[in-house]
């Protein structure tokens, strides 16, 4: 399995890092707030599972709440390697971005 990040994986991982810990429903909401686009929940869940498999996220069982119909949520938290891989990716992008001639 490739240990690089796809575009959506990157966003989701960043959002998890921003929240310190998060879960599917919250990420759908955050995605909409930040990127002003709708995303379906299964798309998010698929990415979360993939990131977990790659070892960039770890999950644990969270508390059940009223609005979830009493179901427990699965919380996700970034691992150390998760933090590192996103740091590298962002740095690389930033370096290139600095070199791009500015339009205005």
């Amino acid at each position, binding site marked *: 399995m490739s240990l690089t990040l796809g575009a959506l994986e990157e966003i989701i991982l960043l959002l998890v890092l921003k929240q310190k810990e998060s879960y599917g429903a919250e990420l759908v909401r955050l995605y909409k707030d930040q990127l002003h686009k709708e995303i379906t929940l*299964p*798309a998010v*869940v698929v990415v979360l599972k993939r990131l977990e498999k790659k070892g960039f996220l770890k999950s644990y069982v969270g508390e059940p709440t009223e609005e979830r119909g009493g179901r427990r949520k699965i919380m996700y938290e970034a691992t150390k390697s998760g933090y590192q891989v996103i740091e590298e990716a962002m740095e690389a992008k930033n370096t290139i971005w600095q070199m791009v001639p500015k339009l205005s």
Partner: protein
Amino acid sequence: MTNGKTPRLGSWLLKLLCRKEYLDEVKGDLEENFYWRTKEVGLRKARIRYYLDVFSTVRLTKVNLSSYNGFTRSMFLSFIKSSFRNFRRQWTYTFLNIFGLALGMAAALFILEYVSDELNYNKPSDADRIYRVSNDYYRFKKMIYESSMTFSGVGPAMQRDLADVEKYARLFSASTGWGGAMILTRPDQPSVNFKEHKLFFADPGLIDLFDIPMLHGANELDQLNTILLTPEMAVKYFGDVTDAIGQTLRYNDNATEYELKVAGIFERPDYNLQVDFNVLISYSTRAQSDPERFENDWGGNAFITFVKLRQGANPSGIEEAMDELTLKYKPGYLEKNESGEYNRINRYFLTNIQDIHLNSKYQNEVGTIGNATSVNLLQVIAVFIVVVAWINFINLTTAKSIDRAREVGVRKVLGARRKELVLQFFTEAFLINLFALVFAVGIVLLGQGQFNGFTEKDLGLESIQMDSFVVPGVMIFILGTILSGLYPALILSSHQAVLTLKGKYRKQSGISLRRGLIVFQLLFSSLLIMATLAINRQLNYMNDQEMGFDMDQVLIFRGPAIRDVTNEAHIPSIRTFKERVLSIANVKSVGTSSVIPGIGILRGIVLVKQKTQNGDDMKSIERVVVDNGFHRTLGMNFIAGEGFDESIRGFAPIVLNEAAMLELGFQDAQEALGQTIYEFGQEERVIVGILENYHHESLNRKIDPMYFVRNEAFDTFYVIRLANAQTASAIKAIGNLYSEIFPGNPAEYYFLDSFFNNQYKRDEVNSKVFSSFALMAIVVACLGLYGLSSFSTVQRTKEIGIRKVLGAKVHSIYYLLSREIILLAVLGFLLAAPIANYGINRWLEGFAYHIDVKPWLFLLPFALVLVVTLLAVSQKIISTALTNPVKSLRYE
């Protein structure tokens, strides 16, 4: 549903789709999202989003089957795997199956394309309340004419006087019915001029009625001197679509000339137009010069009139109301005879515009006309071809069942339940059908060009109509797959394990069904071949028939439209043209006339024996205006007297054809010759010749009574007979002469024989369509027979070996094995012949002159089917019969 509760159906779907270990998590997340979305965007939108989420849970499905119901999944995979193994092991049989099915489906797809296109005429959004007004005319209880076009006053009067009529639109063309020519010219570049055949004067409402999309400019048909073009026309005259707007075009026909402003560019709608037009000129342009004739006339039937009724209006009520309207606007029609009946009657009919294309009965119909019967027949054929293909499949599979009995036995011993066996065979059937469908689409894509070539349509898979065919098509496909899969599956899975493993299983299952199905296949194939043969014979008959005149090497030039003088004064130019044409080498003779053979006849002119005002004696006979040279040029024969000649002077001569002579009540030609009769009841005409009947129209019509009067000024058509040699140079010389003597008129010519034979075009297309589908059907049937016979022969290899050892000859074995199939073919023929006989006779009734139905018309197809069937079954039988018995008996 209370706030915050997710839809029940959704959670059920979720359970079905989602992987089990994620189910709780996803369900919770979804419920939470649903909760805040309800608050944010409202319940309705939240629910839509929720369903979107649920459906996209498909992406979490993958592993679901294995963990949720491991048994089902692996079983399913095993079905697919063993299906493929089986396909590979018996690839010829599988190939036969797939190929046969694919061919059948491809034929059905082609037919659906064709039928969809035929049904897709005149379908604007309000089509169901738009009607075409036609009328007939009775005088003294005799029908004078039936016309698809009506009078100019009808449309406006209907809108004015009838509350249920919302809108009307008329189309008028100088060329409809009587061969006038319409020419458009660019005034700034007079060399840019063309004859236009799809040009109409149109009321502004037409654009709305037919939902015609305007690309540029606007529908300014409500103004004087405006013209609308299609993009192709704009390019033709101005080189570019956008440049055309605001430009000027000049219109000419035999009578009028207008300068027109290009106001807009319209596109043809996405359905087919029954009356196709590519140039529209505002109707008021034409009407202004002669408002009496073009706005309020009730005598000249030259106006295609469409009306749009209000919602819920009853067309037959309108037809009745029209009777009153006639009397209001045609006071002359109030006149009654002694018994109180009207002397003259017009009746009006409303035809829904969608029905015109396939269900028209009018001789003077403008536009393309199809045939409802052949469209219906083709749909039936489509279904039958697919059924034949499925029958193959069922036959082959059930026949194979013995072969697979052992496999079934082993499976059963190993614990397979019946349900699972059925499912397995069903999976195979489904896969084969699926492959066949893919192949069929491939065949259609490859063969499309060819098919479009002979149907002369521009078709593709996308022409198949969504709503009326795709849904039933898919349903038939699924049903067929289920039925064709289910029966073999049931047969195959019914074998008893112990018997099959002992090797004692020899029971032939489903034999009578199989025989029945073969009979049906052969019946259907013979039917198609008989029909094809009959159509072909009739077409040949019509082409070979003595027409009564000689149409070979006759060139037709349309008369000029642009002239600077009136009819009488242009005679000198016509004379000059004819004289100079005659001086060209290879030209034998030349003549002019108002109509030529192949142009439809609308009887309506009056001729009487005695001078009279009383309508009872009047006969309606077609009138043709010709010059001295016409009859000679076409090589027509006279029974008595002569044609028109220079020497006939001092009185008005007339020529009748035989039919007209009899209609007028003359006993024989000699009696009629020299008699004086009266045209229009008043004008004296002396009979100088009786013409032998000739076929003025196609052979599906009886010969109409016609008469000919002489007038040099009518040069609607020039008929020119050429000698056989160097046609091309003669045509070129005539063309040059034409441009010189009639400047500004594009020279347009064609050969009379090809023009005349155009009338048979529809029948020719039909013949090609039928013969190609007959071919496909018989190929499909043969594939099945080949597979079946080779299989049943292999079954009897051992028996044949023993027979040979005991001294049987090859031919007796051949007879033994092919006897059954011959019997079935005979049975199929016996059933097919009466059906074909009935159908062919019905079809031939549509032709006034037709072939007789003779026995060989059925026996020949039967012989063909028999030969092809025997060929299909023989190869395997003979090769088995020739096998050395040692080989077939060695094992065991």
